[in-house]
Structure formats: C-alpha cells, structure tokens
C-alpha cells in the first residue's frame, strides 16, 4: 500500500497541500482529480520524491520513504510532455533504467523487446523520439518506466498534450495495460471523464485538500460537497439544494415540495432534451429529460410546470 | 537534478576564482597601478598632445565605422531577412569572415590593394589620395573588422518580427520608404542599439589591423591603442598604464551599456 499522511507543502505564500492524507490500495488504478492549482501534481511528485514535503510522511509498502531520494524509491514516472531522452534511440530510452542497474546485455535487449511489444512499438527500436508521434512517445515513456519493474507507476497528466482522439484511445489502452500488468498506478488528471472511465478509485482535490475519495459511481451518486458534485457532473440548484439535471422531474400539477417554474426554452439534443426554466425569483434552472420523457410530457415554451428533485441532493450554500 | 551542496559551492568557488585570476584581478591591478602615482600624474599623462590627438582620432575613426556599418548593416539585414533569393548562406559566410581573419591579415590585405604597390596603388597615387599610412587606411581597417556586428544583431530580429506589419502598411498606401521609416525601423531599434555598442567597443579597441596600416605618426595617425603600445615600447610604463586605464574605463562603460540594452531587449 502507498500512503501519504499529513502532507503539507508551501511554495512561498502559496499553500499547495494542506494536511493531505490518502491511502492507495495495492494493484489499483487511482486518479487524483482536480482543477489546476489543486495540488494534485505536487502530491504526486512528493510521492515520487521529486519534491520534499514541508510536513508529513510518505509510506511505500509500510516503510517511511519521506527522506529517501527518488532514485531509490523504485517508482516509475511518466510526464505530460514525455521527457523523452531525445539524443537516444527508442531502444536506449527504454533500456536506460536497466543499463544503469548494470544488467547483462542479452537480458536488457530481451526485456526491451518484450516491453515494446506490449506497448505496441515493436520494430521501433532504432528510431529517435523526434520521429515518433506524441502518442507513440508517451507509450515509449510508459515502456521505459515499466522496464525497471517499479512498485508504483505515477503518471502526471500523461495525455494532456495529445489530441482528443489519441487521448481517448490511449486512456482505454492504459486501462487494459493496467489490467494485464497490475502495477499500482496513480494518475493525475483534470479531466473528470478520463478519471471516471478508467480509475478504480478517485481522489478529488481542490485548493490543496482532498475533498472526497471513492469509486467513480460513489462520487457521482453520493458527492460529499458542492465542489465534488460540480466537478464530476452538471448541477442545477433547486430550493437551496443542488441536484443533477437528470434527477429533476417535471410535473404538470403542483405537489408538496415541488417548485414552480416557467419553461423558457426547450433544446433537442438528439437523445437528450434540455429544458431551460425560470424560477419565480428570476433564477434560471435547467433540467435534462430523455426524448421519450419529453414526448410524454407534451410541454412547450412558456408553460408553467412544477419541479421536484429525486436522487441525492447536496446543500447548496456550503462553505468551500 | 539538484546538485549536492558541497558540489554546488565548489563549482561556484572555482568559477569565480577562475574569473578573478584571469579577468578581474589583472584589470583591477591596472587601475591600481595607474592611480598609484596620483590622479594628477594620470591626468597629465592622458592630456598630452599625443594622447589628446590619439583620443580624437580614435573617436573619429570609430564614429565613421559605426555610422557606415550601421547603415550598411541594416541594408544587409533587410536583404537577408526580407529578400527572396538563393545563396543566402554565402552572404552569411562572407559576413562572418571578419570574425575569422587575423587582424594582421586584414591590415595586410588592405596594403595589397590600396598600398603603393597595391592593385590600386598607382591610380590612388595619381589622384593624390593616400590610404595606407594615413587616416583613410585606419578607417578602412576598422570598418572591415567591425562589419558583422550590426547586421548579425538586426537580422534575427527582422526574421522574428516578420513582415506582416509592413504588408499592412503597404495596403494602407505607405511607400517603401515610409514603411521602412515608420514600421520596420522602430521594430529593430534595440537590435541596432546593441549592434552599435558592440561595433563601438570593437572599433575603439582595434589594434592589429590598425598597427599594420597606420604610419603610427604621433599626433596624426596614432590611435589610442597604438599609443599604448608605443609608450610601452618606450619604457613609459606609467603612460601605457594610464592610456590603458582610459581604454579599460571605456570598456567597462560599454559593458554596462551592453547589459542595460540586453535587459531592455528581453523586455521588449
């Protein structure tokens, strides 16, 4: 298990991490999710040993590694901009960690070939990084990191510099790789779709603190606070509480607890129908219906309806 | 990578020690030795008729070299950065040549062209113009060795700025000259300024080429650098130091201007 306990880190006056504690289960793929400045990259780098915390402890497999230099932590690190050794071939890049451990040549060559096969770069041994696409360079970086059999694989926004399509493909590919190789993996990202689609656990971070940790479904259905709810999906405010637009039911007759609203606009987005409404106080709300639900309702712009929230809601006015 | 503290300190000390031993202490020593006999003696030394004439000759020659090489430097930069023609690498190479040629060879080359036995020797003599052993020769030599500075500073700026603004000006009706004066020139002013400073420093400090082409006639064709050498050869060490100190002071001033301009350039 990887654990960070009570980590604090300051850069001048800026508090990057404020008493952060987190446990990463072995063999899992955990995402650190948050906006820029939330501290997620800093936390990752502290776990890697590339930064030193001002306070707190880093434990890897039970031993305190806080003061251990990154060279000896047996980690693998993948950077957003690949950090390819541009003066070395793909083979030499991937072999680097093995070469400095003075492993015998045949062993290194075999392992490099094996890894390049796994990441889909077989035959690229003699190419240089500047002859590879972004996605290929990142796969090479992964092979390089995995070559030394790390105890934990750390990825810092690994797909941030890639096109949307490549990003989506590579993300799925990473999940499949993880399922094969089973290395404990920590992934830093600001893309909630990325985290939701491949992570076993997500730690949502904001302003240097962990807001909530849990499986993707749990975070979406039972958010702990306003921030987590808003970061992981769309929200609408109804009667002082936050609710998912697709959890708002439109009724033609008033009922206890329902709120009155007038439809201002109906937008048909294929399968989804987005209904924009105005509350008596003037506030805007929007609800999301399926095409069938909208058809059954038979409402149009200007109609008065009553809104009721189903599903979990969160107190709207919460301290950040 | 963070270097360990002992290594960091060692490197810092070595670097500074190297600079001290090689550059700073010798220069400081000159100033010290110069002012040892007192400011009065120094003043006298640099205000002798020979010194004053050397000073003004140096200024005159440098001024000409600066003006000429600035104008032509900008022209060459325009040709390189804005022109569309093949063989730019050739012009680049020729422009770099003054950096690669020994100053003595520069002086020799001028003698072989403009000297009495040079290619134009007879024609110049007939026209009554003396180049070698006279001021024009010194000017030519200085222009030669300072040729690359302005063009090399301005060309990359012109390339980087691009000609979008100039094209915009043309569509608005500006003539070529107007475009140049109002659009192009302001965009390269820091490149020019820095190039001018480098040119000035080099021109004032030129010795080898001038040593060959000048008649070294005191009060006439003797520059400040030649004065230093003459005084040294005549065992007037104090006088040589004084003139050197003057040149070194100018050099330090140049360095200051260079640094300031550099910072302005980066901010621009």
């Amino acid at each position, binding site marked *: 298990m990887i654990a960070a306990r009570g980590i604090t880190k300051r850069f001048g006056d800026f508090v990057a991490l404020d008493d952060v504690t987190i446990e990463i289960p072995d063999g899992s793929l955990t995402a650190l999710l948050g906006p820029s400045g939330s501290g997620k990259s800093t936390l990752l780098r502290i776990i890697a040993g590339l930064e030193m915390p001002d306070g707190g402890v880093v434990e890897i497999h039970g031993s305190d590694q806080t003061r251990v230099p990154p060279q000896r932590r047996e980690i693998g690190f993948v950077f957003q901009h690949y950090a390819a050794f541009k003066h070395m071939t793909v083979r030499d890049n991937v072999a*680097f960690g093995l070469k400095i451990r003075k492993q015998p040549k045949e062993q290194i060559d075999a392992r490099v070939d094996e890894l390049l096969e796994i990441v889909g770069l077989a035959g690229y041994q003699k190419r240089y990084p500047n002859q590879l696409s972004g996605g290929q360079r990142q796969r090479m970086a992964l092979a390089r990191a995995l070559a030394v059999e790390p105890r934990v694989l750390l990825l810092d926004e690994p797909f941030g510099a890639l096109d949307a399509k490549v990003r989506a493909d590579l993300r799925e590919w990473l999940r499949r790789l993880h399922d094969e190789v089973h290395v404990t993996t920590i992934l830093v990202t600001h893309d909630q779709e990325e985290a939701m689609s491949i992570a076993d656990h997500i730690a949502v971070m904001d302003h240097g603190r962990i807001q909530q940790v849990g499986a993707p479904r749990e975070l979406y259905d039972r958010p702990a606070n306003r921030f987590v709810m808003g970061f992981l999906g769309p929200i609408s405010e109804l009667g002082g509480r936050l609710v998912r637009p697709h959890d708002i039911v439109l009724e033609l007759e008033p009922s206890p607890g329902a709120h009155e609203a007038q439809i201002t606009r109906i937008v048909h987005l294929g399968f989804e129908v987005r209904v924009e409404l105005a509350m008596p106080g003037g506030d805007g709300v929007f609800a999301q219906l399926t095409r069938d639900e909208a058809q059954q309702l038979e409402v149009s712009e200007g109609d008065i309806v009553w809104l009721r929230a189903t599903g979990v809601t969160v107190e709207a006015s919460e301290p950040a | 990578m963070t270097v360990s503290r002992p290594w960091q300190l060692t490197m810092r000390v070595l670097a500074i020690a190297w600079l001290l031993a090689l550059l700073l202490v010798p220069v400081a020593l000159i100033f010290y030795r110069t002012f040892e006999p007192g400011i009065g003696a120094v003043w006298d030394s640099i205000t002798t008729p020979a010194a004053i004439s050397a000073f003004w000759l140096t200024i005159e020659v440098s001024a000409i070299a600066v003006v000429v090489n600035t104008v032509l430097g900008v022209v060459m930069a325009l040709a390189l950065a804005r022109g569309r023609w093949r063989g730019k690498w050739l*012009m680049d190479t020729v422009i770099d040549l003054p950096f690669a040629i020994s*100053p*003595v060879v520069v002086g020799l080359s001028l003698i072989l062209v403009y000297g009495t036995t040079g290619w134009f020797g007879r024609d110049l003599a007939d026209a009554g113009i003396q180049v070698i052993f006279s001021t024009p020769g010194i000017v030519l030599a200085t222009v*030669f060795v300072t040729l690359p500075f302005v063009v090399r500073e301005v060309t990359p700026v012109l390339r980087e700025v691009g000609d979008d603004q100039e094209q915009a000006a043309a569509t608005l009706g500006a003539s070529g000259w107007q475009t140049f004066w109002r659009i192009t020139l302001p965009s390269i002013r820091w490149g020019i300024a820095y190039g001018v400073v480098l040119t000035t420093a080099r021109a004032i400090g030129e010795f080898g080429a001038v040593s060959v082409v000048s008649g070294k006639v005191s009060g006439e064709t003797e520059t400040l650098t030649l004065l230093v050498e003459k005084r040294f050869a005549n065992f007037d060490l104090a006088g040589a*130091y004084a003139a050197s100190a003057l040149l070194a002071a100018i050099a330090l001033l140049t360095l200051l201007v*260079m640094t300031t301009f550099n910072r302005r350039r980066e901010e621009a």
Partner: protein
Amino acid sequence: MSVIALPRRRPAVRSGALALGISTLWLSVIVLLPLAAVVVRSLDGGVGDFWDAVSSRQAVAALRFTILVSLATAAINAVTGTLLAWVLVRDRFPGKKVVNALIDLPFALPTIVAGLTLLALYGPNSPLGIDVAFTQFAVLLALLFVTQPFVVRSVQPVLIEVDREMEEAAISLGASNRTVFLRIILPNLLPAILSGAGLAFARAVGEFGSIVLISGNVPFDTQVSSVYIFKLIESDAPIGAAAVSVVLLLVSVIVLALIRLLGRWGARHDR
C-alpha cells in the same frame, strides 16, 4: 470620399533587389576584394616562392605553435566555459548578474590592454611574484583571456533550454546525479560546447594584440603566426606575408565550416 491608393508596384520587391545589390557591392569591396588580393598576390612570385615562404622553418614553427596553443585554449575553454555556464544558469548567489555581465569583458576590452593587464599581474613586476612573461604559457594565458566568453555564451542558452523533466525522468529511473550529468545533460550540451570551442579556436589562431607584449615573440619558441606575418610585413616582404596568411586563412575557413556543420548535426534530434 477617399479612395485607398494602392501602390502600383510592390515596393518590397524593388527595395529588396536594391538591398541585395548594395549589400553585394559593399561586401565585395570591403571584404572580398582585399581577401582576394591576399590570395592572388601570394602567388606574385610564383608557386615556388609561395612554397618557400610557407615552408620556411620559422613559418612552420610559428604555425605549429599557433595551432597547438589554440587547441589547448579551446580545450581548456570547453571545460571552464561549461563550468561557468553551469554556475550562471543553475546556481543562485548575490552578485550573479554582475558576474554574468563581466563574462563579456574580453569582448569590450582592447586586446593590447588585455595583454598589458596580464603582463602587470603575471610578468616581471608581478605583485604575486609570478613571472611567466616571454614563455609559451604566457601566450596560452593571453589566449584564454580573449576567448573566455565563447564557450560560456554558446552553452548558456542551451543549458537554459534543457528539459528538466528529462533529468527528472532519469532520476525516477534510478540515475545518480553523476549519471544524469554524463548521460543526459552533457550529450545535449556537446554541440554547443564544441561550437563555442571552435569559435575560440578560430579567434585564437589569429590573435595578435594581446600576445605581442607578453610573449616576447621569440622565433621558434613563443612566436605565433600572426606575429610572424607582422614581422614579414615590417621587413618589406608582403608577398611572403601573404603566403603565410593564406595558410592561416585556410585554417580559419576550415574551422568555420566545421562549426557550421556541427550546428546542423547538433540539431538533428530536435523537433
């Protein structure tokens, strides 16, 4: 109502040709003509005279010494220049900006003054008691002074641009600081180091002003080619001087060409 008056002929094209014409004329008259004179007139006395001038014992001795001491200068500069660049880029201490500015001092200081200052500190009246005047070491000293900035200024921008994440990647893979420097940083600095050393070498072979005072110009011992050429000119042997100059020019041109090729080789991995 005003009408936008479009220029009838693109002024850029016309002035472009003008600039090219003026530049070509200027460079031809100021640079190419005199250089051509050196090459052409070196053969004024025929190939036989040329060869005699170039292969005289003194000429050969001067050339050999010049090349050797310039190589030594370039090699030492490769090390000290890289060290200085490293300290200026990666270290932080009060007065660093001043130190950075002072690197350019040799560019601003007249060479004759440079020679005089070195003579004052390391010559007969040295306050430190070190007297190396009139030795080959003195020539090396002078050359180190004037070529000081080349490697530093060549390496600095490259060092600033080196991808720190490459270093961190190497560290995360287990590399020690020494390994990171030797296997990651240095290979990326090498083209710049060699280029700067090449420039230093080219400058050193032609250097004159800083050497005249401190070396004593002893033939077969501390005499460099530039001083030998000067002596030939003074003794009214300009053709012989031209011949030796041609050899020196050849050395410089070859080095410059190598530097240019080096630049292209060095950028082969960039994208």
